[in-house]
């Protein structure tokens, strides 16, 4: 049988000389979910952007249903039934969902607005894709945005949907719902390319898997015939060492005390409604909660980036409530934020980013000391294996995983007492994630860690204690390690 899509010998050299793909062959069969697995920078996104007509291959051929194609734009790919949902979505934030659907559909074929909305409603109802058509996109959760994107693809009669790291921004519950939807659509003869670096998801959703490593296809398998360990080994070209957490000894004195903290987010919504917690020296305290439970505001207050409306923060017994970011850092707080757009100046170089937030320490008088900054950058990229071409290249040119390693690495390389790590392993491949987790555990010897993560396995594995937030309040506290996922998930949902 002719495969639905067949990509042969695809090579891609970017304008800056980066060789992203080296003769990759990839096939998608009718009605299958095909996982594209690989570390950060393996070339997954590049390969799929080529299929979607966003990039042109340097060499190689593409066939759709046996016909040779050379798309010059995504519109052309869409006319052939190919749609792609990007990692960061491509909806207009200030438009409503209906506006976005109309915009997308009419860029491919003319259709009246009423008809677009009618069909969206009908499709949504039939497939159980709940998206409020009249809501503005910027007000939607990540899960909703994704459903809107998928609905958009279906309205375009897509028979092939490419999902690029679809769960990276979703909460665990939303991720579960997505996998359900994929199975539903598969039954309707939609084929998927599921791009991911998460082994578990491959096992859960895919029929076949193609593993990319450093721009080359290192194998395509039936998922049922290959183990997670084998896939991990292929993906990184080596055995993965799992972090073995050593139980910490008896925790020391109280380092951080948060008392009755209340705060609003930028939109004025009350997010923290009186949170009290403490962290002792030598502890990793995990904060778990569905997105928007107040964890972000908590982290920002501790980093000096948000003023609480009420409550106290004490660090080592000293009241530090309402201090500036600079003062908090001087008091010993290290902060690796959830967003790389915040924790990095992406238009600036690796060197310049290596001293971000401690630029004063690398200046003598009014002039910057670039030698010492370079030294520091070198330490970070070596210890955290950041892949780069030049220390003075823009951080934006790095892949997401490398940006993450640079940002987390910078914080872990610094002197400090309390590390606030918000989604520290987001976008990292298995090996790097384990490396960062190991470093977080090691940080306990220097002070304490507040770990905020939506990866519940990670929270359970690393934390000595887990504080669960729900709608701005602490709804429970669990012991790390021995607690089970089930109980944690229930608490996160607000069930006591």
């Amino acid at each position, binding site marked *: 049988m002719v495969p639905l899509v067949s990509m042969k010998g695809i090579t891609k050299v970017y304008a800056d000389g980066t060789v992203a793909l080296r003769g990759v062959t990839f096939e998608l069969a009718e009605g299958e979910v095909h996982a594209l697995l690989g570390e950060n920078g393996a070339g997954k996104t590049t390969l799929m952007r080529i299929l979607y007509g966003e990039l042109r291959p340097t060499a190689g051929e593409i066939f759709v249903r046996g016909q040779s194609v050379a798309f010059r734009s995504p519109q052309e790919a869409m006319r052939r039934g190919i749609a792609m949902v990007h990692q960061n979505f491509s909806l207009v934030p200030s438009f409503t969902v209906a506006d976005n659907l109309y915009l997308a559909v009419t860029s491919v074929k003319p259709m009246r607005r009423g008809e677009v909305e009618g069909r969206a409603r009908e499709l949504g109802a039939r497939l159980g894709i709940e998206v409020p058509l009249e809501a503005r996109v910027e007000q939607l959760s990540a899960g909703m945005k994704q459903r809107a994107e998928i609905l958009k693809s279906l309205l375009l009669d897509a028979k092939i949907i490419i999902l690029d790291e679809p769960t990276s921004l979703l909460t665990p519950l939303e991720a579960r719902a997505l996998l359900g939807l994929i199975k539903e659509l598969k039954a309707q003869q939609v084929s998927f390319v599921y791009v991911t670096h998460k082994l578990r998801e491959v096992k859960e959703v895919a029929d076949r898997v193609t593993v990319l490593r450093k721009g080359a296809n290192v194998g395509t398998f039936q998922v049922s015939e290959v183990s997670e360990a084998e896939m991990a080994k292929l993906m990184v070209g080596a055995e993965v060492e799992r972090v073995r957490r050593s139980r910490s000894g008896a925790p020391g004195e109280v380092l951080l005390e948060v008392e009755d903290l209340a705060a609003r987010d930028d939109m004025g919504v009350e997010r923290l409604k009186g949170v009290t917690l403490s962290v002792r020296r030598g502890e990793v305290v995990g904060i778990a909660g569905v997105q928007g439970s107040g964890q972000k505001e908590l982290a920002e207050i501790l980093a000096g980036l948000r003023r609480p409306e009420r409550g106290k923060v004490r660090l080592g017994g000293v009241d530090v409530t309402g201090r500036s970011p600079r003062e908090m850092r001087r008091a010993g707080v290290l902060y690796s934020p959830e967003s790389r757009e915040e924790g990095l100046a992406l238009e*600036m170089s690796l060197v*310049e980013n290596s001293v971000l937030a401690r630029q004063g320490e690398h200046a003598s008088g009014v002039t910057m000391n670039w030698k010492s900054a370079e030294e520091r950058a070198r330490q970070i990229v070596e210890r955290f294996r950041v892949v780069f071409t030049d220390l003075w290249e823009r951080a934006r040119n790095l892949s997401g995983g490398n940006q993450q390693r640079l940002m987390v690495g910078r914080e872990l390389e610094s002197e400090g007492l309390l590390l606030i790590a918000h989604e520290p392993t987001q976008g990292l491949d298995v090996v790097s994630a384990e490396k960062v987790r190991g470093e977080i555990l090691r940080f306990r010897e220097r002070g304490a860690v507040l770990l905020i993560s939506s990866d519940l396995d990670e929270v359970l594995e690393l934390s000595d204690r887990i504080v669960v937030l729900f709608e701005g309040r602490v709804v429970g506290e669990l012991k790390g390690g021995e607690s089970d996922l089930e109980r944690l998930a229930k608490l996160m949902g607000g069930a006591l």
Partner: protein
Amino acid sequence: MSGEALRALSETALALAAAVFVTSLLLLLLGYDPVSSLAVMFTYGLGNVEYVAAVAAPLVLSALAFLIPLRAGLFNIGGEGQAYLGALSFLYFSQQFGALGLLAGGLMGALLGGTLGALRAFLGVNEVIASIMTNWTLYYVTLFLVSRHLTHPEFPHRSIDVGFFLGSWTSFLLALALALLALVLLYNTLLGYEIRVLGSSRRAAAYAGIDVRRVTVLSMSIGGLFGGTAGALKVMYVGHLDTTMSALFGVGFLGIGVALIGKSHPIGAVLSAAFLASMIIGGHWVELRLGTPPELTDVIVGVMVLVLSAPYALKLLQRGGRLG
């Protein structure tokens, strides 16, 4: 040469070809011979290098006036008004204090820039709108002063003569030195680092503990310092102001184009200022040789600026104004 520099160069070459094409079309449409016009424009302009240096010097500075705030993510459209104020201050203070008049021009520009910066930082007043309003206010203030208070005793349509003069080369070297200073400021000082972080992302600046208000006020003040000096140099070269404002009008605006063509880099600004200066001078020769009206020269220079700065300006817009 690095790949990036090579790319920038070939991009500029392409833009130049496009600019020549568009202006040729324009000349053809208006019934002039594009080949001889452009031949005169490109060659005669370079005939007198000293003249080029004199015209380029204020342009380098008015480009810096736009460029420094731009690196902090701010649009200082107020270079024009800062140049008027700098020119007036120089005219007035040079009578008694000679060379110090230049400093007075720069400082008054800095004061104006700093005020616009403070309005933005503390009251949230958009710097573009405030700049446009002060530009026009100062335009009429200058006209008023030239015709009422600083008026020449014999020629009522123009101002008294400046009290200090520097030669073309000295002016250009001064501008070059200030451009190098701007380069050092941006890339080798703590303040420059903070300016660039702010220009890269406001969130990252807050994260880094940078005092956003302080950097906003300082970068606008420094921009104003350059803008004021640009105006001072310009009036110094011409020797006086007159009620047509022809000596001064547009110095600040042209600086925006110069900065963009120079890809918001101080050295790029020096090169593009020299190039545009030679175009302006070449344009005057076209008027003399082929009898084209002076407005046509302005149009051609304008089209050149637009086409040459377009690739970079568009890239900047795409990135939402973010620079490193």
